[in-house]
Structure formats: C-alpha cells, structure tokens
C-alpha cells in the first residue's frame, strides 16, 4: 500500500496503533551487530521458563514480501525461518515443531486501511501458487509474538526458489463491531501478493540469540514495521472514557475504562465498561479470550455476566459490557473463562494461561 497515504490517514484519525517513527526495518538490513544467520542451529527452548512472559532463547528477523488493499481490508505479508510455536485449543497448549519440509514461517497482518486498526479474531486462509499450480493451502492461525504482536501465521513448505503468488482469504468478521465499524468487515475478501523466495535470501534474515537474558522476565521490543500498523493497544491516556483501574492476569494486562453510554451498535441503557487487554511490556492487543465479570456495589450485584469481544474504532479490540452505572466504591472482578485462543511464539507460551495454566481473577476497586 501507499505508505504516505497510510501515514496521512493515520494522523487524520489519530491512531494509537500507528507506525511510531516508521524508522525500523522489517528486514535484516540494520539489525544489531550481534545478530547472525540461522546456520548455527536453533537454540533449544529455555529450561525453567517462568510462568509469564519471558525473553526467549532467540529471535528471528523477518522480511516483508508486500502489501495489498482490497475491499475493507489491507494486508501485509512477511516471512521468516520456519519456527516452532504453541497452538492453543481451549485449555490445551501444545508445541508444534518445525517439520522437515517446512521452508518458511509465513505471517500475515490484516488491518483497516482507514484507521490502521489491526483486525484480530477473524479467519484467514492462505493459498500459495507457483504459476497456476497449487503449492499449498491452509487455514492459518492467529498468533502472538513479542516482536510482531498479533498476526496470523503458519509454517509452510515450498517447492524451491522462485516466484510465488500468495493469496490471502480473509473471512468476514463475526466479532461484534461498533461505531463506524458496524457495517464494515462484513464481507470476505481475497488479495494476491507476489512472493519471491530464495533460500539464500531467507538465510540472510537476522537471527539473534539472547544467551544471558534468555529465560528472564521481560519481552524483546516490538519491531517497528514500515508499511504496516502493529497491534498495539491504545495507551491509557488515549483510551476513551474514564480509566477506572488496571490489573494483571498471568501477564495479560487489563486496562478498564468506563464510557457514559455504549458505543453505537450495542443495545442497552447505562454505562459501558470496556476491558482493553494487552501484553505486559509490549502492550499488544490480546484477543479471543472468554471474559466474565461481576460488578458489586456493597451487597448488590450490579452486573454479572459476559464481557463480549468487540472491535471499536476508538476503543480498539476490547471486551465490553453494558451496566446500569459504575460508581465510586464499586468492586469489579474479571474472570478469564477461556484463555486467549491464539497460538504463541516463544516467550509467550507460558503466559496468559498457556502451558502452566492459571489466569487469576482481577479485582478493581473503583475510586
């Protein structure tokens, strides 16, 4: 897509998930000097990982293949070395190892070209063609990684060096949408992105080991990406409404804001509580959780029920509920009933439920 145009629209809409600086690189050109290529082998998973976000043994760079805009959607396509990740299905988190014939890890980002909002929680499938011949097709999984935040990804085999076409098929969003998003993202769309692959070029992608920091609490910095917004959640100060508190559940941070009335598209009278969930450290949106909450006023239960997955142009992705009112002295308890149903790159597999389970309830006292 036209980068200048994106920056213009981004500033016009004061997007919190904008491309801060636009100086970083999606490729390997200016990686730090301690980076190396993967030829030295993939380090093993850190032993004694903490139960929470940690610095992984290594991190791989990536290369941008291209972008496309189609209908309501903008797409970005990137790739890196094939890597291991953890798949999440309900309560279970299981390691997916690299398979012998996997050549690359393909990553796709889908966002709204008007606001720069990354669209999590929809379905994405990928077809890879060489000339007219089908090389692969998969439904790919939503994923969280430290450098990229939310994206869709999978390992793929290829048939050698050459020119490919990657066709991205995005499904209509079924997540509740509000405000100007109500009537958008409601049709499936397909976009083709040309993809030049050479093994040699792939092997030039940076590969950085963290020998001393590996396994300590913390996260590697998000990679600033040219041409694409990232999935950073709005900062506390840019979230609409009155922020009534924040809490942490297994390194998922919940920032809770109250707005005077529900965003357009949600029925009900009263105030609206929005829980904006993001990764500790990098503040990347954490989608696809089941969240329930209880709002207590002394002995009275003001609300007890689901916080619905919702995408709003200002609140971004969040979990929301309409309540009569939120008053000083109220107590809000949030309970994660389903851990985020996103696959995890290394360093995230124990956090947010993950391999060791346990996302504690978060309780806030409203001031």
């Amino acid at each position: 897509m036209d980068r200048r145009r994106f920056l213009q629209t981004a500033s016009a809409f004061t997007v919190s998930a904008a491309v801060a600086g636009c100086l970083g690189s999606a490729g390997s050109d200016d990686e730090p000097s301690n980076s190396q290529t993967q030829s030295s082998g993939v380090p093993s998973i850190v032993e004694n990982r903490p139960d929470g976000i940690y610095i992984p043994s290594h991190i791989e760079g990536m290369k941008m293949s291209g972008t496309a805009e189609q209908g309501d959607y903008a797409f970005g396509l990137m790739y890196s070395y094939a890597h291991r990740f953890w798949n999440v299905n309900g309560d279970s988190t299981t390691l997916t190892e690299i398979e012998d014939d996997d050549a690359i890890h393909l990553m796709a980002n889908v966002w709204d070209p008007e606001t720069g909002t990354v669209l999590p929680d929809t379905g994405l499938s990928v077809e890879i063609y060489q000339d007219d011949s089908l090389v692969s097709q998969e439904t790919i999984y939503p994923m969280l990684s430290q450098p990229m935040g939310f994206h869709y990804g999978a390992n793929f085999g290829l048939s050698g060096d050459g020119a490919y076409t990657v066709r991205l098929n995005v499904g209509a969003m079924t997540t509740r949408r509000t405000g100007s998003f109500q009537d958008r993202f409601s049709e499936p769309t397909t976009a083709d992105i040309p993809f030049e692959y050479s093994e040699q070029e792939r092997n030039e992608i940076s590969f950085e080991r963290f020998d001393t920091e590996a396994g300590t609490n913390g996260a590697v910095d998000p990679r600033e990406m040219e041409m694409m917004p990232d999935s950073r959640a709005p900062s506390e100060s840019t979230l609409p409404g009155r922020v009534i508190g924040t809490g942490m559940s297994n390194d998922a941070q919940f920032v809770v804001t109250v707005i005077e009335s529900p965003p357009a598209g949600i029925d009900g009278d009263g105030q609206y509580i929005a829980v904006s969930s993001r990764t500790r450290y990098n503040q990347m949106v954490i989608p696809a959780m089941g969240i329930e909450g209880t709002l207590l006023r002394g002995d009275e239960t003001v609300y007890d029920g689901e916080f619905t997955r919702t995408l709003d142009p200002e609140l971004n992705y969040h979990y929301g509920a309409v309540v009569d009112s939120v008053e000083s002295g109220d107590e809000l308890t949030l309970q994660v009933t389903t851990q985020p149903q996103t696959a995890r790159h290394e360093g995230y597999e124990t956090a947010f439920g993950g391999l060791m389970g346990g996302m504690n309830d978060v309780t806030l006292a409203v001031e």
Partner: protein
Amino acid sequence: MDSFDGNPSRRQILKTAVAIGGASALSACLNNGGSEPIPSGDPAAKPPRQHAWREYIRHDKYDNSQLPKHQILLYVNFDEEGRPSPETRSTLEESLTVLDRGYEWSNEGLLHTIAYSASYFERFDQSLPEQVTLPQPRALSPFESPTFDTQDAVLHLASDRADVVLEAEQALRGERDTANGESVEAQLTDVATIDSRRTGFVGAGLPAERQDAEGIPDSNPVPEDSPLFMGFEAGFKGNQATEDYVTIEEGPFSGGTTMALSNLRQRLDDWYEEQSFDERVMEMFSPGHAENDLVEGIGSNLEDNSGIDEFVDNIEADAETHGRVGHAQKAARANRDAEGNVKLLRRHFESTDDIGSDQSVASLHFPSLQRRVSDFEEVRRAMNGTDLTQVTPAIRQRVNNGILEYIFVRRRGYFLIPPRRHRSVPMPQPESSS
C-alpha cells in the same frame, strides 16, 4: 460386477482413466483384460424420476446406499440463443435415449441425470411455476467466495464401471458410433458445448489409491477401506432424506427435484497430522461420539444411522467443554423438518479435479438433492457454526468448527432436475398451452 478391480495393472489404469477421459482412456480400460458384458437398457423401463437411483444401486448390509464408483459431470451451454428450438429438444432427447438404450438403469449399467440452472430459465419470458424455487447460487458462509456455475445445464453420469461412464461420455460427444452396441444417432455436442468436465469416484479403496493427490499428506493416511479421503463413511440411511421426500410433488415439474452442486477443495495435512483419531471423530461427528467411543475405524459400526440426533442439543455445552464441535452435529440442527424427517439427500463423491488446472488436487463434488434449494442453504448455514463462535472463542470461524478448517468451497451451482418427461430443454411451464 467388475471382476478386474483386483488386477493391479487394471487398477492403475482405472485410477486415472476417468479423470483423463477420451478414447485412449476408454480403450485402455477395455483392453486391459476384457470386461463382463454391460447390461443394456430399455428406454421404456426407466423410472419417471431422473433422480431415482437408490433402488438401482448397491447397498451395504445395513441398507445404506453405495453410490456408483465412477462419476462424470459435464457442464454445458446450449449453442442456440434464447428459447431452444424443437430441433434442439429432439436432438438432446435422442442423445439421452441412446444412453437409455445402451445401458441398464443400474450401477452396473448407467445412471444419468440432466439438470438445468436458473440462468437457463432466463432464456424464457415465463417464470418457473410456484412449486419450483430455483435461485442463482450465492455465497453461504462469511468466509467463502466461490465461483458460481451458471452454465445452462449439467449432465451427471454414474456407474460402477469406468468404461461405462467413459463410453457414455464419448457417445454424447459424438466420438463413438455406438454406446454398448447401440448406434449413436444423435449427440449432445450437436446442440451444446461442454464448458467444464469434472470427474470423481467414491467407495472403499478408491480414495486410498489416489491419495498421492495434492492436499493429502505424504504419510498415506487415508484408510484402505474408506469411501472418502477424510477417512469416514457418509450417507447413512438414517441421516439421508428419502427420494420421495426430496421430490417436488405438484405442478408441471412434479417428480423432479432440485440439486445444489458444489466443489470443495480438501486440505488434509492438519486433519491427519495435527489431530488424533478422537479429535477427528469430534470434528466430523460430535464430541459425544468421541467421548462414548461410538466410532470405530471408518464408522461402519454406526450401521444405518450416525446417531447424531442424540448430540444436537448438546452443541453449545460441547463447545464450552471440549472447545470443538462436530460437522454432522452442526448440520443436523437444520436438517430435520418438524416431524423429524431428514431434509437433504447428499450424494457426494471424491475427486482429484482442480477445476481450471491439470493438477491433481483432492476435492469433493457435493450434489445435494432437496425439494427446495432453501433447505440446502439453511443446512449449509447451520454448518458454518457462526453462532458457536460467539459461545466461546475456542470455536473460531474455521478452526475447531467441524471440518471447516480443511474444506474450501470453490464452485457452487443450483439446478432443477426435471422429471424424465421434461428432461430435454424444458420450458418453465412445460405443461401449459403457451
């Protein structure tokens, strides 16, 4: 019966003959060790319904229908513009009568139907009678964008014998002078042009033999006895509508039915390599089927009913508890009428067609017969499970949501299968005087 299926070189030829087609494929089938005679037909002995197949094909010991092993679909456009002329009608009728004469109406002979699209009926000023609703095809899920098959008509040929479907096709194309000894006095291609030729197969052993197709992992996971690539049996008698049920009862097209005909690409890497058998059972049937060990192997032990009705009401609880829901479980929700009758008669078969290319890619041709196309649409929408993605984020648009992760709809067309008496370029109101 086909006595040569045990012969390895014949099997090798059969494996690709129907897909490739043409005279050489046919002669390879014929030359490879002579066949038993093909039973010939009597036009007067054909059932009045073109879709009357069940009585004339094999059944397993539980009385489940066993669809003919080899099938060809010819999508055609008539050469004439506007209303078809009487000459077109008589040529087409004669070319179909050649098949009626040549082959017994059975799995050992040939079953064939011709069906017409809404686009075909747009040639006329008149509209279809009220008893027939035949819309244009459309997308039915929030995640598909199929190409629509809007050709005038589709001819469906089916037999247990590859040489029969090949020979019948060549007779229709005028590439043979005889069809099972009957002289070919008229040919389809005199009045119509074949726009798309598609082929397929179904039945124990045939998918396993063809699992080198793109879309199936290299580990040869398809069970030898499975009739379908995905490793299970489908079409239990108790989960299928009867032919009577799907038949239009009144009006000029009484005795006919509607057909939704889709093609779906199959991508079975994760189906076989990421999932255990129990997980496959959960996703194909229901989590309850896995929990109660109801399915052994390809599921023949289910006898004549998948038993899905018992698990339909549990679906939301299953989604919450197991983070997965079943394909049959979702579809069955919309597949019963108020009296509990099954609404769709599915006759799907496997393929290695990759429509638009010569590549061999696992796919499925999915003809579904029903009285009203809207019945199909409702069942297909129920199969999307969109409501279940709201119940828990563990059920995603395609993932953990039945078999949607592995199937990709590429084509869809809707057709009217008229009764035999109106099978040749029917008018929209064939029994009215105009």
